[in-house]
């Protein structure tokens, strides 16, 4: 039976904003408890900025194998799958490249630091690559090649959104939408007409910001953009989406890409890969049948595979 979405919570997490919607108002408090527990566990496993996280320990292991939790193995497995499915365009071994650009602390601090000094010495190079990550799922052991440093940011947030939405819907028997920094997962019965999502550049923008409103019934919707998590290093504007082939921020004809998929982690995988691939993303998304909305740097919009056509005025660049 379908119900109306009736309750909402909003809070800070992972250096961004989480939004929780549930179709049953009385379930909201318990649902928030589910999210708090799940997100705390993901943060402890995967944060690049916590000295006590598993990821920090693994990055410091110097090539030695390390025992990891089942949760960490699940998230790493999702990241490796994303790398495999995109031919390495979404790669978890971007840790050193992103750190070299100064993004080695919570993003609010990076932004507040203003123009940073370049940390790169010598020429940039491709990231080590996901094949340098050896995961033994059965024994819960991971080994990174010595040069490789993990950054699971691209997939961990989306993976967590899927996990939280599934957990809320299953445990509390209600419809749930979980947005973690604009990466959206839905589970359980959707409200009449579906969940209404405003697709735009910045997840923190108001619900009527320039963009397009769509409804989703299931799965995930994710947006990647070069415009929001951006800062300056040595007078140069950089952003957080690394092209693994160069080790540098991706140079793309798209400023923002939104993708709908069967899960949030798949949507995030495709939207990130699309930014990295640039013009080649359009035929790729058509071929794989993923509904997407791609906004060029000049504000013009393309859509693929059943995404509703965007009749609105061209967005300001």
């Amino acid at each position, binding site marked *: 039976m379908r119900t109306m979405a009736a309750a909402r919570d909003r809070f800070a997490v992972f250096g961004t904003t989480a939004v929780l919607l549930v179709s049953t108002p009385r379930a909201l408090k318990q649902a928030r408890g589910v999210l708090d527990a799940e997100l705390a566990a993901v943060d402890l496993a995967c944060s690049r900025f916590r000295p006590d996280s598993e990821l920090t320990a693994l990055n410091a292991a110097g090539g030695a194998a390390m025992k990891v939790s089942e949760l960490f193995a699940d998230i790493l497995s999702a990241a490796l799958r994303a790398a495999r*499915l995109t031919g390495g365009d979404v790669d978890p071994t971007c840790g050193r490249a992103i750190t070299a650009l100064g993004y080695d602390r919570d993003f609010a601090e990076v932004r507040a630091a203003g123009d940073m000094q370049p940390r790169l010495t010598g020429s940039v190079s491709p990231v080590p690559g996901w094949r340098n990550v050896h995961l033994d*799922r059965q024994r819960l052991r991971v080994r990174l090649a010595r040069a490789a440093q993990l950054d699971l940011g691209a997939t961990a947030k989306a993976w967590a959104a899927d996990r939280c939405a599934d957990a809320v819907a299953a445990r509390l028997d209600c419809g749930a939408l979980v947005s973690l920094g604009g990466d959206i997962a839905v589970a359980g019965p959707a409200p009449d*007409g579906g969940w209404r999502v405003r697709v*735009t550049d910045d997840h923190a923008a108001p*619900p009527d910001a320039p963009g397009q409103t*769509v409804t*989703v019934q299931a799965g995930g919707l994710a947006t990647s953009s070069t415009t929001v*998590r951006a800062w300056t290093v040595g007078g140069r504007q950089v952003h957080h989406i690394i092209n693994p082939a160069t080790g540098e921020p991706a140079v793309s004809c798209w400023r923002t890409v939104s993708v709908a998929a*069967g899960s949030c982690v798949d949507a995030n995988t495709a939207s990130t890969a699309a930014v990295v691939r640039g013009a080649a993303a359009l035929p790729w998304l058509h071929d794989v049948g993923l509904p997407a909305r791609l906004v060029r740097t000049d504000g013009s919009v393309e859509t693929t595979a059943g995404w*509703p056509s965007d009749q609105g005025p061209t967005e300001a660049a």
Partner: protein
Amino acid sequence: MRQDDRRRAVAAARDQGLRRITRLTWRAGVVGVVCSALVAAAFGHDVRRTTAPSQQGTIVVPGQPPAPAQGAGQVTSGAS
């Protein structure tokens, strides 16, 4: 008489051979079942952990694409 004894001896040898083959077949079957059970016990948990092939091998498209809607959203999808 001697011919009858020979026939009985041949028949007895044939019966004994058949019994031996039956026993061997039975034992081979038992060994096969035990081996199958051991393999299942050893690797069964891996099978449960493995994601469905369709999820492992491709980015999964949504059951239905987003539909157009008017007005503001309940939530915003954008970069963070």
